């Protein structure tokens, strides 16, 4: 069960550290960082918190439609998606999440690739 990942790693007190660590990595990364240039802080943190909570089976869930709408204004390439995925992997490894759980999280992430990549348009 996905739900157990969130509980298994200590609920929000642990997940919050993962959220902040991923947030730091994303902002410092020159490939995916620019996507967040014009996003204000509360919105970005809100997104990150829900993103990690959802991937780990916590109290958040995104519908496919919601994910598509949130990224509709961005042009996301496969390379961006891969980079994001590897940042998520590095972050989870840093927090000693077990390898099979990391694969499970990344698997959840991967199935949503089509929602982000190649669907964006320039307004």
């Amino acid at each position, binding site marked *: 069960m996905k739900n157990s990942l969130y509980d298994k790693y200590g609920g*929000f007190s642990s997940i*919050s550290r993962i*959220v*902040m660590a991923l*947030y730091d990595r994303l*902002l*410092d990364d020159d490939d995916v*960082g*620019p996507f*967040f*240039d014009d996003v*204000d*802080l*509360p919105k970005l*943190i*809100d997104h*990150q*918190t*829900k993103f990690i*909570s959802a991937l780990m089976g*916590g*109290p*958040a869930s995104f519908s496919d439609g919601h994910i598509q709408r949130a990224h509709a204004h961005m042009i996301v390439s496969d390379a961006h998606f891969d980079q994001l995925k590897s940042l998520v992997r590095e972050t989870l490894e840093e927090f000693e999440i077990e390898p099979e759980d990391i694969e499970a999280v990344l698997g959840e992430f991967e199935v949503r690739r089509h929602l982000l990549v190649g669907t964006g348009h320039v307004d």
Partner: protein
Amino acid sequence: MSIEAINEQLLRAIGVGVALFDMETLEARFRNDTFIEWFGPADRAGGLLDLFPGLDVDALRDVLAVGGRHTAETSFKMRRRTMTVAMEFNRAGGEGERIAVLVCQNITRIKELESMIDSYSVMVERNTREIKREKEQVEKLLLDMMPRGAYEEYKSSGIVAPRLFEPVSVLALDFVGFDALLAAHDPGVVVSELNDIYGAFDRIGEQFGCERTRTHGDSYVAVSGVPDPSAEHAVAVANAAVRYLRYLRQRNQSHPIQWNARVGLATGAVVGSVVGVQRYIYDVFGPAVTEALALRGGAEPMSILTEATLAELLDESFDAVSAGDGDAVVLTERLAAAPGARNFGL
């Protein structure tokens, strides 16, 4: 290296932004490395208002003049990260000088964590609301399936222990020629009318202290005295029964499908319990139910058949006439309604 030199080097290197401003000219006299990293290179205009256009300089001067301190917050972008810095001004220097010391603490992380907690709280609160709503729906469903007392027992222990209720009265009703009705009319219409009728029966029963326990097709069973004992259990089912028939007679005058019920009433003991592990349902069964079903089977269309023992428990609002068949009596309402009899608009 002199002490002063070491101090200055330390001051430059610490992770806190420090600057000294001349309060006459508002120009910076000193900025350490962290301050410069946050607020611009050393050659940039160093005026206090250039750096912090929103700062209330008059208020700052007033506070510093009396030896107080002034605090403010400022935000800026640094490599796409929104930085938040808490500023604190204190007065320094001797009598002749008006120097303000500005100490800047980086509180970006605190702000980020605050945002995260806000986000998480909203998520959790929304989830809590959803869980509460679902719980209410489940509770409503279970209360439709069992009496509140049984539900409370089920909630605390996960089971409903069978209980004997005595004395109680049972009302059993069905419709004459129901299969023929189904064959002759659109089943959707028949079931929809049956729903209306059962809904009306439920409302009438509730007014008289009867509770429906089950329906099975055209069979409708209600009981009085379960789970809360009632001294008026027999009167309750008799009152409900005559109103059911009155309701049907009135309804039949204005509807093409004629619903002719027969009713059996019996008093005695029943067992109440939740039956089944899955798809469970609260049900009552036992001698009084069996007897009521048997009496119903012997009743003429649009009549109520009961036993003498139940009829003896009733008041003068009812007439009981022997059915000429053992103990059974036909029950009717006495037409001159008893004083105080309630009119339920039927």
